[in-house]
């Protein structure tokens, strides 16, 4: 309860400060919190990455597995993104199967990567119509201090850049051996904006998410193309606001992309 009142106070303060305009943690409106990247977090994963975006803490692991291709794409593999809002991450998350929020998070990260075509699904084919690689990207939220979309997208990208393809012998996986790195032709990333009292900020922290009317996430690549958009929250955006966000998304994501040396 005390926790609630504090967040209420902070959220009210956010709405007050934004009029100046100023942010509770003194960031610029379009400034990200500091990002820490730790790849290779889990040796049992084929690729993994832990991202700290301010105090937000996200761990993503990748497992590659062989399965039958979908009948309508017999010469392609695919990706599957899951997300879990772990109960340790916030006093309000509860154990259990993914809820609406976790489902939305996973699906938006999925589209941002999938539609960018950073991974060539045809290269995941092993035997047409019989066997292909499927890439399981699992997102675990360990601490929710705001902006899970961008933190998850960063961690997913980091984990994919870290991913090694298991070695095959007679089209079966040889455990613990690898045949090379997963190829990523670009670095798709989400950039998320919050609209608070009519003002736009990037990378909202928890108090800002509690104060915001609406959220807009934009997936971009380094070729200045967009691969995904998702509006969230019960508020609305004007056309001009959306266009401003698009401009900023290209700009901010380019800064973030520099944090990943490889690829």
């Amino acid at each position, binding site marked *: 309860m005390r926790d609630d009142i504090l967040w209420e106070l902070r959220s009210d303060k956010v709405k007050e400060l934004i009029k100046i305009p100023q942010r509770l943690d003194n960031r610029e409106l379009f400034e990200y919190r500091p990002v820490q990247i730790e790849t290779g977090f889990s040796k049992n994963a084929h690729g993994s990455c832990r991202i700290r975006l301010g105090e937000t803490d996200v761990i993503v692991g990748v497992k590659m597995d062989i399965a039958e291709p979908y009948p309508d794409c017999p010469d392609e593999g695919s990706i599957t993104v899951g997300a879990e809002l772990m109960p340790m991450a916030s006093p309000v998350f509860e154990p259990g199967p993914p809820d609406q929020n976790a*489902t939305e998070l996973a699906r938006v990260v999925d589209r941002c990567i*999938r539609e960018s075509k950073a991974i060539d699904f045809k290269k995941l084919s092993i035997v047409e119509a019989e066997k292909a690689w499927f890439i399981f990207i699992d997102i675990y939220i360990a601490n929710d201090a705001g902006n899970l979309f961008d933190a998850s997208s960063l961690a997913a990208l980091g984990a994919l850049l870290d991913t090694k393809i298991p070695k095959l012998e007679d089209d079966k996986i040889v455990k613990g051996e690898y045949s090379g790195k997963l190829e990523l032709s670009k670095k798709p990333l989400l950039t998320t904006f919050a609209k608070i009292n009519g003002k736009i900020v990037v990378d909202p922290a928890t108090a800002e998410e509690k104060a915001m009317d609406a959220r807009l996430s934009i997936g971009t690549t380094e070729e200045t193309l*967009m691969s995904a*958009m998702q509006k969230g929250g019960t508020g*609305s955006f004007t056309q001009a606001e959306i266009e401003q966000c*698009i401009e900023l998304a*290209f700009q901010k994501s380019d800064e973030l992309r520099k944090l990943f040396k490889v690829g």
Partner: protein
Amino acid sequence: MEEIVYVNTEGKRIDGRKLDELRPIKIIPSVLSRAEGSAYIEWGQNKALVGVFGPREAIPQHIQDPTKAIVNYVYRMATFSVPDRKSPKPGRREIEISKVSGEALAKAIFVERFPNTTIDIYVHIFDSNAGTRCAALTAASVALADAGIPMRDLVSACAVGRAAGHIMLDPCKEEEDASDAVDMPLAIMPRTKEVVLLQMDGIISKEEWKKAFELGLKGCQQVYGIQKKALKRKYEEIAEEEAKAIEHVDKQLKEISENPELLRGGNK
């Protein structure tokens, strides 16, 4: 595989439409007697029913919000509404669409007037061919009006997309499956043009996006016209309905006056 001609030399699409043309849309409010508000929509091949209940007390109590009504939007597809049989269990796509659609409508409803309640909006798709979330949202907004739930404006939705380099309104399934396809479902409150739903997938430049977005806005305005017409038709029937309603109440009162013991009877 044969090359598909998405737009022919006369500027016509696979199904004969122009690039900025919606599929035929038919909306009928008040189709379900047990729901408090309802609507049926046909949008091209898409068919959906919507039933609305509420505002009614949110149960269990601990989910109640003392500052506003909870908008509970449930989007589901019938097993036979798609080419391959869908599992009867709700999938992740259905869960995501439910979330963003509910958020879109919450902006339009005066939720702050109904604290501690839920407004339940149940949508079911019975046949589909691209654009079901927009059809459903469009119908849901009419069903809310039918239920008499006070709103700032209707919510009008339609998708815009790209196929073979052409930006086009309200893509059908074949267009959605183009190799360069972009799909952008959009919903606005038409009077203020505020965007309440926006999703996009596919790879697109800023310039093309803007062209697509503005075409989408025009589509939503057309949908708005269709929604208003459907509701107007209904309100024209109201004189008649009201006469019936008065007659019904009279009958009820008569019943009770003839059977006064009923008023004392158990109320389960």
